[in-house]
Each structure stands twice: as structure tokens, then as C-alpha cells.
């Protein structure tokens, strides 16, 4: 489904990704572990169409998204990608319900029943009208999980999803992600510096200094 071929990325003079090759299949659960600064987020951003590689290609369903124009990338993110970040990145001024609904709105859909259903599925029923700052970290991340799934993307990209949660909450969130991803047959790419999380993955890949160690 996704194929990275010899992907390179530079930030100025720093060579961050040095020839990444990777295959992701439908229903895959891949964990990419590595120390801080090894290029995990950069890689995830490339796959998620947040940024473009400087060299190499990223094939998604046979098309090279590295040659996509900005508008095409936007569309790609909007329809195929669900993101989960370390710092939740919820929009602060709108409610839980509206945060979850946001990807649908961007796709010109409303589907309120579906929104309610997903909120229930992440265990936040009753908190629809709360604002993000009224929630705990774990609850906020649940909102983010619901938001990542609501528009039925093909790939979930999770960048240190539990990096700012305590370990007990972290495990609960990870279980939730795994469970929902399996139920909905999503491919998941999980990026983390904590090795024990690789237990969740079907495949574990290590990254060091911008190179993947299979």
C-alpha cells in the first residue's frame, strides 16, 4: 500500500533521513523506534504528506506523493491519513465533539451520529460538550484517537502518542489504538523512543541516524 524508495531528507546541511526503504501493507502495525533526534518524526511527516522528501519516492497506491503539489498533498492528508501527536494538538476553542468532527467538516461532511459513535468508542460518552482544557491528558489523547479515525483513513500515523502520558494511561491509550485499528482494518505506523511499545506491533523497525535497521 505504501512504498518508500530511497527517501532522503535534509534540513539545511543536516542529512536527517539517509535512504529510507519501507513497505507498509494494509492492516499492518509497524513500530519505528529510535532515540530522540534520529529522524522518526521527520519520516512520519513525509509519509503523512506534511512535507516532501528531497530525494527518493513515496508511492501510495502506485502514485508518487513526493511529486504531489500542495493541493494534492492536502487532499491526500484529508482523505487517507489520521494523525495522533504526542501533544494531542486539539483545537482549544472548540468542544470535544467539534474536534472529532473537524476532519469530516474538512471533507464537507457532517455525520453527527458517526461522531457520537466514535466518541463513545473511545470512552468519552458524556464529554461531548467539554473543552479540551477541561480534560485530562489521557482523555485528550482519546479525543485525538477518535479524530484520527473518524474520516475512515487508510493509515494511522502516531508520533509518540503516549509520550506525555503516565505509563498506566499510556497503556490504556495504546490498547485503544490497537483495538480500534484492528476493528477498522487500518494500517498503523507508530513512532516512539520507548522500546516496550513495539510489543503492540506486528513488525518492529529500528531507526538510527536516519537509517532503518530491519
Amino acid at each position, binding site marked *: 500500500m505504501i512504498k518508500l524508495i530511497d527517501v532522503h531528507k535534509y534540513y539545511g546541511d543536516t542529512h536527517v533521513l539517509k535512504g529510507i526503504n519501507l513497505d507498509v501493507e494494509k492492516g499492518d502495525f509497524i513500530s519505528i523506534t529510535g532515540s530522540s533526534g534520529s529522524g522518526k518524526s521527520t519520516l512520519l511527516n513525509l509519509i503523512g504528506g506534511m512535507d516532501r522528501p528531497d530525494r527518493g519516492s513515496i508511492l501510495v497506491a502506485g502514485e508518487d506523493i513526493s511529486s504531489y503539489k*500542495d493541493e494534492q498533498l*492536502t487532499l*491526500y*492528508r484529508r482523505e487517507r491519513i489520521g494523525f495522533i501527536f504526542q501533544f494531542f494538538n*486539539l*483545537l482549544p476553542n*472548540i468542544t470535544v465533539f467539534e474536534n472529532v468532527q473537524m*476532519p469530516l*467538516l*474538512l471533507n464537507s461532511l457532517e455525520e453527527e451520529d458517526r461522531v457520537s459513535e466514535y466518541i463513545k468508542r473511545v470512552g468519552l460518552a458524556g464529554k461531548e460538550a467539554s473543552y479540551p482544557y477541561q480534560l485530562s491528558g489521557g482523555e485528550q489523547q482519546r479525543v485525538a484517537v477518535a479524530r484520527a479515525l473518524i474520516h475512515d483513513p487508510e493509515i494511522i500515523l502516531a508520533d509518540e502518542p503516549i509520550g506525555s502520558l503516565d505509563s498506566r494511561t499510556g497503556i490504556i491509550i495504546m490498547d485503544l489504538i490497537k483495538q480500534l485499528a484492528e476493528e477498522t482494518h487500518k494500517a498503523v505506523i507508530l513512532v516512539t523512543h520507548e522500546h516496550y511499545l513495539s510489543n503492540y506491533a506486528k513488525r518492529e523497525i529500528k531507526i538510527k541516524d536516519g537509517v532503518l535497521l530491519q
Partner: protein
Amino acid sequence: MISLKLIRLFILKNIRNEKFLTVLSIVGVALGIGLFIGVKVASDRALASFESDIRGLSQNTDYEVLDISGIDFNEHIYRDILDIEGNSYPILRVNGYLSAIQESISINGIDTVKAARLVQPAGRKAYDIEDFYKNLSSILITKGLSDKYSIKKGDIIECLVYDKKYSLKIAGILDSKTLPADAVIMDIGNFQEYFNRTGYLSRIDLTADEKTSREIRRILPPNLSIERKEELLKNRESVVTSFRYNLQFISLIAILVGIFLLYNTVFISVVKRRTEIGVLRGLGAGQKTVVTLFLVQGLIVGFVGSMLGIAVGQIAAYFSVLAVERTISTMYSTISISEYLITKGDALSALALGLLVSLIASAIPSYEASKIRPNESLKEGTFESKYKSCRKPFVFAGLSLILSGVVVSCLDYRYAPFDFPFLAYMGILFIILGFTLISPFYLSVILRIARKPAGRIFKATGRITFGDMKGNIYRFSVALMSVAISSALIIALLTLIFSFRHSLASWINRNIAADVYIKPASCTSNFCFYPLSDEVISLVKSFPEVAGVDKFRTLHLELFGRKVVAGFGDIAVQREFTRAGRNGERNRGLEYGKQVSISNYLSTKYGLKKGDVIALQTPEGKEKFTINDTFSSYSTTSGFIYMDRKWLREYWGLDDATQLAVYLKEGVDTGRFIQGLKQALSGKYALEIMNNNNLRKKVITIFNKTFSITYAIELISILVSLIGVLNTLLALVIERKREISIIRYLGGSWDQIKQMLVLSAGIVGIAGIVLGTVMGFLISVIFIQVINKISFGWEIHFKIPFLYLSIVVLVLFLTTLSAGLLPAKVARKIDPMRFISFE
């Protein structure tokens, strides 16, 4: 298309969070748009009133025969014209003043049989035909006038006409949409008899084609001309133009400040919501969506602001109409504007302007927003660092702009290529823009200089504040510029007003030198065109206390196709009785050759100098006069030519006077003399008799009244720019909520935070005022030397009101400081938890 829900979630909810900023920018936009539209309405209505004045009585006539000097002429020509064109209507008119209701009217004697369709009654029993023809004093008034002052059929009103008081009987009310509200109709025969104007006409209206008009021109004596109504209208319009543009420019400044406020508000949203925008982009929002969202934010503010602006505009229109009416009436000729309601069209154009303005204001920040990358995070370069490299080019561009502003204004000063000082106004905008570009560099220099002493005085707070300001130079420069612009405006306008008053006072000293001044009470303008009765003049002369009488006469005159005012005075009398005349300071040698003095306005406009020769159209044909001198005239802004009375006799065949300046013998009690004079004239004549002192006071009052609207508009502009100061300082706090929260977490007390905010406001205030002073000085020179000279031709000597200015500057500084306190209040409301937990 983006959904309404998205707009609601991302924009409307946020507007609610930035209530105060949003309200400020709404008010800013509303004031700017309101002023602009108010002034537009006022000048539009003035033009409409000119138009109905010129066309009013006979809507579809297209030519008019009139005297070239603007006086009444012998009616016998009417017979000859009638032979050529049957569709001609004689009119005799005069301005009257209803002292009881302080309203000017224009009394029109018309051939009511010929123009019967003009005198349609309002309703069946609206008037009494018999009475109208039989009773000499019968008049018909408009429904407008009747409604406004509840004057009914059968009422008798007192009216000042020429130099007497008359009773007029209301014979009926007219229902006419085309008649100006202040028009009063009389039968022409009655008019001539009642006001003792038998044998005279003021004009003849004609429905004719080119060919006929040429035929008529051939039979006209040299004192008469036939003119197209369109031409007359254009001529009149030019009277309002400079007045209009000047007011409109000032309201343009208010709009600019409004744009600035709006820009600031949207910009703050963008800067503050960088991460959010990044998240939205990450979720798949395209650049267009982001641009649209922020444009919509601007448009919402613009829309609400414009709607409010229409209400403000209605109020502004009311006052501007009063002011325009007063100014035109005193400076040019009496007009009466009865309409001041904003029309649907005006409201629509206000709305369109408001939306346009808000689009312009939000375009740049929206574009900035769309450039935010999907994975934007705090470590990405911020706005500040992105523009750091631009500082040098900014300084360079700024200096060039200031320079070109000065050059452009100088060009306007030297060559005045347009009727209106467009170049000078452009120069002012350039200068403001130039200073804006320089301001970041300027602020960084100030910070470098003040850093050490501030660190010593304010300790840690000082160091943190300076570091903070250095890191946010661009944001702080914006605040600095709003202080600078408002202080520059205040300084420039105060200097202008102060210098003007000073020059006016010395002009009054030089020119109002006689002991007693007499003019018809019906005349409310600076210049009167209806002569005083001979009896009045001889009566005044017969008083033993009188040493000399300067008989003054004004006429209209055409110079280079424009109507100007010509004044004829008795130079010999002036020479004998005034110090200025004796010393030869005034009108020196004017009584000798064929010479004239012209006002500075004319010399600027047509590039005329001392020694040049101009040809003036007189009833005797074109006559050449040499320009003896140029002088500054405050009584008119459309050009004034002054010459000795003997030319009036020689070329115009007139020896009458419209105003008298009386010199009394040494030791005579002026008060008692006036008392005696009034007694001798009472019952028969209605005159305005003033002693020297009263006239001086009156002139100053007239000027104050005339300029009250300008002052008001300026005041509002200044107010709006102060709102701008508040807005930017507040924006700074909102934008740095996070930093403030961190400082709190690190153990900073509220007092320290307040100190920091007030300290930065103080630095911004002082630096802004200093910059504003430089800018204000430059602008005031342009105001006085270029704009004023081109639009009004008034000679104003530059004079800086040091005392006023230092008070104002102090007030401004305190305002800025307190503008630092208000955000401190907002800062206090910041919940550190909420803001930290979010990034």
C-alpha cells in the same frame, strides 16, 4: 467550498475569545466608514442643492441669460429674446433671511402664468389664487419649509430682504419635488413692485438648442451672457470640491487607522493560532481554506463595522451637512441643504467600502496564515526571525519613501499641477509609510541605548522586558507606530490650527481697521452682492461724527473661465484714515494706474505674479489690468480681486456699495454714534451695524464655526488612532499569554508582570512620541505650506504652540502608560494552566 460550520468553529468561536480586540477594530472600522460616508453625503447633498438651485425652478431649461457681474439687469432684453425663443422664462430673485427661525430663503419672482405647472398646489385648498395675484406681498412656499417650521397658509412672516424688512404673506403651499425646500415663489410683477425692483431681472431661463443660443448671444449687450446650465453647475461644483476632498482625506486617515486595527486583530489571531493552523493543515485543510477562513474573519468584522458605520455615518452626515451649509454660505453664497438622510445607495457604498477595506486589511495576515506548514510547531521560525533579514532593506526603503514624500510635496508646492493637493496628501502617506518601515530599526536602536540604564533602574524586570521587546521587535514597532501616527496627527493639526489662528488674528488687525461696519442684515455671507440704498449711504455720511466712508462693492467676475469675487474699495479713504494705508502697507499705489491686487489663491492657481497683466471682462468689453500686489484673503477660498472704486464707475457704470466701512472723527464715542445711526434708520432699514471689536469677534466666531466639523473629524481620527495604540498593546499581551504564564510559573508576581507591561508600554510611548514629533512636524509643514496654500490660498505663518504641545504630549504619554495597565488586567485573567497545557 468550506462549510459554514467550519467558519463557525474556527472563526466565530475565536472571535468570542478575542472580544475586546474585535470590538476595538469594529469601532475603528465603524468610525472610519461613518466619517467617510457622512462627509460624502454632506457634499453630495450640497451638490444636489446647487443643482436644484440652478435647475430647480425650471427643470428642463438648458440655458440661462445672466449678467456677467452677477447683478440684476434691465428687463427690456427679455422682449428681444422672446422674439427668438418662446420658451424663455424671466426670473427675479433675491435671498431673504427669516430672522425669527434663522433660516435663509431664496425668493423667486417668476412669470406664474407661463410657468404654471411649477406652481402645483399641495392638495385642493392649498392656495388662494386670487390672493396670490392681488396681494403684493403674497408668496408660495414649499411643503418642506411649511412642514419644518409649521408655517401655514395665511401666516404672515417677517423677512429681511435687501437692506429692509418686509412682511410676506403665505398664500399657499406648493407640492413640488423638484423645488429646493428653501425656494419661495412670488409673481414677478408683484416682486418688482413690492421690493422696488421694477424693470429688473436676475436671469432668463431658456429651453433652446445650440443654434438658438448662438443667435441670442449675438443680440446680448456686453454685460450679459448666455450660459449652459451644465457649465454653471460645473463651476459651482468646483466650489465644493476642495472642501470635500479635504474632509474626505481626513476621514480617509480614520479609515486607514481602521484598516490598521483590523489588520492587527486578524494578524494577532494568526500569530496566536500558529499551532492550531498547523493542526488544521495537518488534518487536511488546504491553503485556500485557511486563507478563506481568515478573510472571513476580517469580513465579519468589516461587515459589523460597516453596519455600525452606517449609523455613525448618519450622525456624521447630519453634522457635516450643517457644517458644509454654513461654510459654503459664509464663504461663497447662501445655500440651504434640507436633505441629510443617508440613501440606500450611500448605505450600500458604505458597506462595499467597509468590506473592501476589511479584505485589504485581512489579506496579508490571511496569506501569512496559509503559509504555515502542516507540521508547524514552535520550533519553526516565527514571524520575527523570518523578517530579521529584512531590516536593512526596510530602513533603506523607508528612507527613500520619506524622501520621495518630501520631494512630491515640494513638487506640489512649486508647480501645483492639480486643483487639489493630491501630491501633498500622497507625500504625507509616503512619509507615514516610510517611518513605519524604519520603525523596527529605530526601536532596536532605542533598546540598545536604553538597555543598560533600564537594567540598573528596573533590575530584573527591566532586563526581562528589554529581552522580550528585542525578541518581538516587529510587534512592538507596530504599537510604536500607532503611538507615532496619533501623536504626529495631533501635533500637525494643533500646529496648523494654532498657526492659522495666529495669522488670522494679525490679518484681522491689519484689515479690520475702520470704526463701524454696515451691511444689509439679509446678507449672511462674508460678501454681500445686493447694494445698500443710496439713502442709507447719504444718511451715514451726513452724521457730523463721520470722518470718512469707504464704500465697498462686490461683484462676480470671470477670470480664466471661473467665477471669482471682485471687491472695489475706496483707496483714497483708506490711505487717509488707516495706519496701514498711510504707511503704504496695504494697496500701495492701487489708486494710480490700472492696477489690481489679487488673492494668493489666484496667484498660486494661475501662477500670476506682481507685474503680470490680466484681462477682465467688463460690460465695456475686456480690460487689461496690471497686478500690483498679491494678498492673503481669509474671507473667500475661491479667489478675490481687489481694486479701486473708480474702475467700478468707469467700466461697470456703478457707484453703489454693498458694505460700508466708516471712519469716525477723533474722540467720537463709537457706541453712541451707532445708537444714533440705528435710531435714524430704524423702521425703514434692516442693517447689521457693528463696531470694530464686534466685527473682529464675529469673524473669529465664523471661522471657529466653519472649522468645527474639521476639528470634530480630526478629533475622531485621533481617537481612532488612540484606539489603535490600545489595540496593539493589548494584542501584545494576548499574543504572549504563554510567556506570561511561564513567567508566572517561574515565580513572577503579578506586580512584576504589571511592571513589565507598563515598562514596555512606556518605552513604546516615549519612542513613539519622539518619532511622531518628527513626523508631525514634517506633516504640519506640508499642511500649512502646501495643502492649505493650494486648497484655500490662505497665508499661514508657521508657529509652533509649544505649551499646548507639551501638555498634549504628556496626556498622550499617560494614555500610553494606562494602555499598558489595561492589558495588565487582561494578563491577570490568564489562567496559566490552560495556556501551558496546550502546547
